[in-house]
């Protein structure tokens, strides 16, 4: 049990390492899902945001946050799901993009350079780094991914869509 008040940065750090259930190499902090922890009205206000409106990870992440806070004896908090400003892949850090690539998922381009998904040469194969790739399907195994094929190494790979 921790009785003294922790500062809100400390609480942020406690929960920031929760992995995303669908892309476990990334944490909720890396993805920008964990938005803010503030101390107000004698409780911690925790804001999280979904990647997509139907993001099935939100209940899982909420339970994890509650579990961790409970472990530290923190009872006075309010957990809110906020929609604004809308989540964007531009929130991903350079480090997060590198982790994605090493995991075998091509990281998202900046939203300003990809208005529409097409067989764009800019999507780089995360395995062999070739730019000779084509769009196979706009929709992949989860809402945030699209499916590409690499013409150089012949592998199919996921692309984290810019959003």
């Amino acid at each position: 049990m921790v009785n003294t008040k922790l500062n809100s940065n400390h609480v942020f750090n406690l929960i920031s390492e929760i992995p995303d259930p669908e892309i476990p190499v990334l944490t909720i902090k890396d993805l920008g899902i964990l938005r803010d922890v503030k101390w107000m009205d004698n409780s911690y206000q925790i804001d999280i945001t979904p990647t997509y409106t139907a993001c099935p990870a939100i209940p899982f992440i909420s339970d994890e946050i509650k579990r961790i806070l409970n472990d530290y004896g923190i009872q006075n908090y309010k957990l809110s799901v906020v929609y604004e400003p809308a989540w964007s892949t531009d929130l991903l850090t350079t480090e997060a993009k590198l982790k994605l690539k090493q995991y075998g998922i091509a990281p998202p381009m900046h939203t300003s350079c990809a208005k529409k998904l097409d067989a764009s040469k800019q999507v780089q194969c995360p395995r062999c780094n070739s730019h000779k790739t084509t769009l196979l399907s706009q929709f992949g195994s989860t809402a945030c991914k699209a499916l590409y094929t690499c013409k150089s190494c012949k592998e199919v790979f996921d692309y984290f869509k810019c959003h």
Partner: protein
Amino acid sequence: MNNSELYNYTLRLADNALILGQRLSELCSKGPFLEEDLAQTNIALDYIGRAQSLYNYAAQLSGKPLSEDELAYRRAENNYYNVLLVEQPDEDFAHTIARQFFYSVADCLFYAELTKSKNETLASIAKKVIKESKYHLNHSSDWVKRLGGGTELSHEKMQNAVNALWMYTDELFEIDDIEHKLIKEGVAVNSSNHKSLWLAEVTEVFKEAGLSVPENNFMMTGGRSGNHSEHFGHLLSELQYLQRAYPDATW
């Protein structure tokens, strides 16, 4: 309830999303091929997520201790206010695409406007939703072009679907007293202004697809006031089965 117009307005938006989401999820494991099966179920999930945030808000507005699930699963047929277009069945893949294309063109125009609503909750949901709507529109318009400009058979099927669903398109731009009041307050979108924009966009895609814009002006309406087509009861019986059989079921 002080907010009865806003409650009804939110419920209409939620019902459109839920019912279209339900129709699309019926395609799960029955898509024409694997990638398209994934695409349709992804789109279905977007709509169900959208419905969930809107029902959540409607439940707050109702002033009663209602849950999202009660609104989504335990109303009677004539208490749903979705447009007729979204409840039309998937006769074939061309019907799925025509329904989606007609809806998505209107949906993008609508939600782009709703982001400017003076109602903060609706505006913030809209900012989230509009990104997904654009994606759905890209997907469905690509298919309209592919099927319309494909083989003789795919062209014929696409044109038939367009002709069959055309009569449900006018209702997308209807407004009534509920909207009139909320438009004055800067909350609602005046979708009656979108009809010409919608027609221009549809015509442009049809031109590229080699499809003709139907000349039939007969239009069906009624969903927004709870008068649904014969397909709706069948849809609801499947949608509501679990919550009717096991109220408040959780897992």
